[in-house]
């Protein structure tokens, strides 16, 4: 599955939040969308999973314009981990994961034996199988995030769109989740805040600032000290990971400030 954002612009509340964004994600590629808060990353993503209609420009899946497909058709090919953060009511984990089959069925979800197995596999992959009978409202933030990812996986997408999937996750589960995402072989567009994780997990990075695409390319190309200083306003040192060679961003806190707040 190939994703293309073509001159995408989005106005929200009379303000241009995304400005003429061009971005390609080729089949099987993992592309990370990075940038400061409010730079338009999530907004661009929302256009891909169709929670939002672009004001101008189009999103294409394998060349087809999204607007020409029904929501259900899109949902059979694309699934998303959104920032909605779970459920209003206390579904069990197994019930919530099963809802991922919705776009493949008519009416309320009734699982076949194969689909039941698919759900269990997804829960095992995201390490939530032992929680299957638990109510989702009693889960920790990290557990809930993994449950939602399992739900996105049972949708059997070709393209997976994730909005800060490592939110609330501990180190072990951050690493596990990103390695697992890579192992799925799906086409992936993911918003990440941790630049080091992004550099380790993504084939390419797209750096956004104030609604515009500032740079796109391999992590080593995109993450330079000058660019990070310019976009984030933070002085950083760059080094390479001793094993993988991925760029790693190091920063030092300004310790000259007095510790007491008056």
């Amino acid at each position, binding site marked *: 599955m190939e994703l293309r954002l073509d001159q995408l612009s989005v106005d929200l509340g009379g303000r241009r939040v995304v400005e003429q964004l061009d971005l390609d994600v080729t089949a099987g590629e993992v592309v990370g969308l990075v940038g400061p808060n409010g730079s338009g990353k999530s907004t661009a993503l*929302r256009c891909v*999973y*169709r*929670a939002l209609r672009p004001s101008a420009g189009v999103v294409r899946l394998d060349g087809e314009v999204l607007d020409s497909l*029904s*929501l*259900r*058709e*899109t*949902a*059979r090919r*694309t*699934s*998303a981990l*959104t*920032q*909605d*953060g*779970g*459920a*209003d*009511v*206390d*579904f*069990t984990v197994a*019930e*919530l994961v099963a*809802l*991922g089959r*919705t*776009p493949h*069925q008519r*009416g*309320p*979800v009734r699982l076949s034996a194969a689909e039941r197995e698919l759900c269990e596999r997804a829960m095992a992959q995201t390490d939530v199988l032992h929680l299957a*009978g638990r*109510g989702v*409202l*009693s889960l920790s933030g990290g557990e809930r995030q993994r449950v*939602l990812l399992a739900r*996105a996986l049972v*949708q059997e997408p070709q393209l997976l*769109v994730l909005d800060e999937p490592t939110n609330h996750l501990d180190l072990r589960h951050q690493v596990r989740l990103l390695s697992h995402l890579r192992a799925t072989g799906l086409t992936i567009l993911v918003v990440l805040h941790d630049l080091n994780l992004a550099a380790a997990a993504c084939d390419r990075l797209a750096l956004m600032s104030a609604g515009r695409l500032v740079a796109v390319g391999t992590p080593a190309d995109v993450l330079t000290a000058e660019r990070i200083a310019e976009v984030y306003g933070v002085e950083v040192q760059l080094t390479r990971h001793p094993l993988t060679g991925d760029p790693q961003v190091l920063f030092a806190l300004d310790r000259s400030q007095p510790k007491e707040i008056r």
Partner: protein
Amino acid sequence: MTTFYRPLAARLPALRDGVLLPSALAAALVVSGLLAIGLGSAVIDPADTARYLWAAVSGGTISADEVSRYQIVWQIRTPRVLLAAVVGAGLAAVGATVQALVRNPLADPYILGISSGASVGAVTVTLFGALAVLGIHAVSVGAFAGAMGATVLVYAAARTRSGITPLRLVLTGVALAFGFQAVMSVLIYFAPGSDATSTVLFWTMGTFGAATWGSVPVAAAVVLVGLVVLRRAAGTLDVLALGDEAAASMGVDATRSRRWLFLLTAVVTGAMAAVSGTIGFVGLVVPHVTRLLVGATHTRVLTTAPLLGAVLAVWVDLLARTAVPPRELPLGVLTALVGVPLFVGLMRRRHAFGGA
């Protein structure tokens, strides 16, 4: 909304298969109905009740000295008990749906201004003698029209270009309900007789006492169609509970779904209000009790809640007309008296809505 349920179903897997509890409730409904038809100021034993009902349905014969008892059973109590069951079921299902639609556990079928709209419609018809051509149905039609008018107004006022958010819907409904109440107060204040006052009392307290074979079938048909359609929309309601963004990513257009479900619940609630007034508490509490019993999945909720609501309404109505004869207690008073302790008890036992 953080509805913190630990359903009984988690401990009793038998509740979760979705057959046992509904079957038991359906049986309880039939038995309750027969008992309720038999009980009252004239007590008729269940065997005779069943025989009269059979005679009425099959066109059989009864002896001459049984005619008055037959009349009580067939012309007075049967429509009343049927209406109670139908409205109880409808309120429970609509309540569960509306709570999911507006994502608020405090929502009930009337939250969107429907009850006060119906009252305004009914009072207007009573006072001004409008719709006189419709005869005895004028007030019901007026109430239904008022309910629909209120719904359209609330929806139009709440919507924005980017669709309709649950919170706006609730706030608009609550605000406009105050407006309708004000209109009603003015109408009553300046009304000459006491007709308007008693109409208002009827509509705000609710009763099944006005049930006749003329009105019950229409309301029943609307409610039953509503129940079937809502039950089929259970999957959509499940997805809506995950949030509008997630819903879109799963192929469900939240705005569009909310619009037609909102309209459907309004029509069903309006039809119920037109024949029975507004009966508080059933539509709020029965959905919660149901979720405590069977879990949150709407397929199960929308199967069990209507049955539970129907049984509850039949018994509450029986209590209302037999507790302090010859007077009838207002239904709203009883639903609250029965429902509040039941709900608080269940909530405390099951640690629902947060807390350990």
